[in-house]
């Protein structure tokens, strides 16, 4: 033993033992049954509920959704009724936000615009998430040439600007409708979900529990559906939430540029575009739809942040 070769350096080499009553011995690796069982999703929800950012954004989003669902409750004016005799009015009891250059009621335009924006945002979010998840999980899970092909397709669509694509399609079709706007956004917006899904699937598929499941007799498809996708989905949910805000902006951008919804439909982007000409004389015409857009988008991005915090993979290990 090496210890013997060294000189004793300690003046008194006493053997000290802690009193047993102060250091009680516990059972080895005893199961703790004091806490309530909670799944990861329950845990995430538990953390989420305590996050002020989540509470604020959730209240705002619920409000926006409520407005979008029941616009009649917030205004009795027809957003499509333009009365030039009442154009450019300041706020009054009849028109609380005033009227536009065309004599539209700004309040009702803003309220009804929520429905358009939220609908397009949700549909585009669902569409992109579906496309992205399918593409991403196939690329990540199958690997090899499938991965190569899908990744290059993703890169191509990632490189094409949304606005450019929308302009091309709008000029080809002549006029746009809501389903076409959603399709255009889906076509150019699925790439980041696909990339995130691919990365998450790549790291999940090498986990021991996937290997264990294979050894238990699970097929490759079973593994993908039962283990890999459920565990890879958290970052996708975060991105999809943030994307919802981004797509609402995208719709507004397209409408602003005149390649989105036709001017006959009520949307925040269209209204912001219409407000350009009256910016100096009627700043409120720009203010209300812009604020509505900003608050909605901000809420979804904040929600995405809060969800990310709750689903943080580091917190999983505890």
């Amino acid at each position: 033993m090496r210890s013997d070769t060294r000189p004793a350096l300690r003046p008194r080499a006493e053997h000290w033992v802690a009193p047993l009553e102060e250091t009680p011995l516990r059972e080895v690796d005893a199961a703790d049954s004091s806490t309530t069982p909670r799944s990861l999703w329950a845990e995430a929800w538990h953390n989420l509920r305590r996050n002020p950012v989540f509470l604020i954004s959730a209240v705002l989003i619920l409000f926006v959704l409520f407005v979008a669902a029941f616009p009649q409750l917030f205004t009795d004016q027809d957003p499509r009724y333009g009365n030039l005799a009442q154009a450019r009015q300041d706020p009054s009891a009849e028109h609380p936000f005033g009227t536009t250059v065309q004599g539209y009621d700004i309040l009702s335009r803003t309220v009804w615009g929520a429905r358009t924006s939220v609908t397009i945002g949700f549909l585009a979010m669902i569409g992109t998430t579906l496309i992205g998840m399918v593409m991403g999980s196939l690329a990540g899970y199958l690997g090899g040439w499938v991965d190569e092909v899908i990744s290059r397709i993703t890169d191509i669509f990632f490189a094409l600007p949304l606005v450019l694509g929308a302009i091309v399609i709008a000029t080809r079709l002549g006029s746009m409708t809501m389903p076409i706007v959603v399709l255009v956004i889906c076509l150019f917006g699925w790439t980041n979900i696909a990339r995130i899904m691919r990365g998450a699937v790549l790291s999940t598929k090498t986990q021991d529990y996937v290997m264990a499941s294979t050894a238990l007799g699970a097929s490759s498809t079973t593994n993908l559906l039962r283990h890999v996708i459920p565990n890879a989905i958290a970052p996708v949910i975060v991105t999809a939430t943030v994307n919802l805000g981004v797509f609402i902006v995208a719709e507004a951008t397209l409408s602003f540029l005149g390649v989105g919804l036709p001017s006959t439909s009520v949307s925040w982007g269209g209204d912001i575009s219409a407000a350009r000409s009256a910016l100096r004389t009627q700043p409120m015409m720009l203010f209300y739809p812009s604020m509505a857009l900003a608050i909605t988008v901000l809420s979804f991005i904040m929600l995405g942040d809060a969800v990310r915090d709750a689903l943080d993979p580091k917190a999983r290990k505890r």
Partner: protein
Amino acid sequence: MTAQPTTERPGAASGPAQPLLEIKDLEITFTTSTGPVQGVRKADLEVYPGETVAIVGESGSGKSTTAMSIAHLLPKNGTVTGGQILFEGRDITHVSERQIRTLRGDQLGLVPQDPMSNLNPMWKVGSQLTEALAANGIAKGSAAKRRSVELLEEAGLSDAERRARQYPHEYSGGMKQRALIAMGLAARPKLLVADEPTSALDVTVQQQILDHLDGLTQELGVAVLLITHDLGLAAERAQHLVVMYKGQVVESGPALELLQNPQHPYTQRLIAAAPSLASRRMESAREAAPAHPRPHRVSEPLVTVTEREADTAAPADPTPSGEQDGHGPEFGYGPVNPEAAIQVQNLTKVFPLRGAVPWKTTPFTAVDDVSFELARGTTTAIVGESGSGKSTVAQMVLRLLSPTQGRVLIDAKDVTEYRGADLKALRRRVQPIFQNPYGTLDPMYSIYRTIEEPLRLHGIGDAKSREAKVRDLLDKVALPADMMRRFPNELSGGQRQRIAIARALALDPEIVVCDEAVSALDVLVQDQVLHLLNDLQAELGLSYLFITHDLAVVRQIADNTLVMEQGKVVEQGTTDQVFQDPQQDYTKRLLAAIPGGSIQLAGAEILDVEAPEGPGVEAEAVHPEQVHGDDDPGERFQRPDPV
């Protein structure tokens, strides 16, 4: 402190020595989301100049926390809430950040736990050392460069000048740890705090590094505070031991005295469980069920005829099975033994290594002509260091990888070509238990769903009978039935591993492949799981293929042992044969490297194997051009990098 302190050896001074480091009544509290948690309570500890003191404890015992508090390196939510830390009589418990920074490096060196993540991959190792020297005001410019080469040399790196110009990824794990030791000792500190300095390394490398650290600190008169979970290692390296449990010091005293005469029940328990100190295969607590007799238990040495001949004919040949190299399947295999649970014949796995250009690959033989038998109801261990190909063998037996050559016979049938329904039926009979308790269970699945999964996959029983089975399995692995509503994140590592065992047993397999199944667990928990595995074997007549790097564990659980090195079997026989009469130098080196193997305990027979005179210094076969990391190659190829 720039002078060579070899001359001023503090401990050698006469007169009553003052402790270099004194910790009194230390209390450390962590603020967590569920309120304050006391990490350390009433800890007392003294380190005298020049001596080595080891803090021993399991994870969560507060050993690292105590050590880190000395250098004020506690995590953000941890604070010292009571007691004192005295360094050379000076209270450093609450001194300013600037004062502690001059203390670190200059008086107090640190060797971190994980050599892989503690060197900056963007910088040359030499530059990182030079920076450390400059930061401590020891040397600058070219002098610092020269000094850093000297320090690397001192840390036992051959060709230090070239090594200093290399990047960390060109170093193996052991070399990185040597560089970190050089860094810790760069300023000639009076105290070196080494936090599990070798836990991430192979056992032979661990021994070299500790030997070197020992010699170096003794020569320089540096006191060492060694943090370790390994009692055997602590006893071998330190003069004084401090045992911690749940944040408290439960016992301290001279190393040998403490081992031979432990007073506190926790220390007694720890010594009883320490695998490095145990000396024979554990006996089952439960009697073997009469329905499952174990006919082959330690009866016949499991060396095949050819191997035995090879051994006697050429005992010096390091690879007795290597002579069969040319044997392809068309040349036929050895005789089929229908009695064996598994018969592995001439198993070979070649991975294509990515070459310089994507369309070119270099073949890499991870497993080279491995043959063995696993008799029913017994345990065969495959031992080897990282890169030996042992896990690759396990994965081929599990049919998670296909062999390049050779075959795996189960019930005298070659299963390597099984597909579809045959393969699924095979899966029921061969089950794995993996190493990482945190990765082996799907975090999204409740415990019930986890254990039920195999039953559901194979369409066994209805919901009610499946629940009964899950209850029964939980009972078998000694966990309460209400555990099944819980999720993996609520369980400890040992409990997760027991769930993994329950899942593996759900299909009533005959063979269980344990791939480092207990390596990640604390000593006591490891002991518990090993006993559980052993009892289950007696009760259910299971055959185990036990893959591990830990020879001490092998001795406790295995009937037969295979030693693998670089893809080849270098030695195989009964565990007793291999341990008492090792034939190969490599096996001898491995055995000699078991920490604490030569410490005598009351009632235990000692295992004393002389290390052979070998190439010694660098046991790691490292080619500077071709270092890819220390993990098992099989694993490396199988898992694609997330790009």
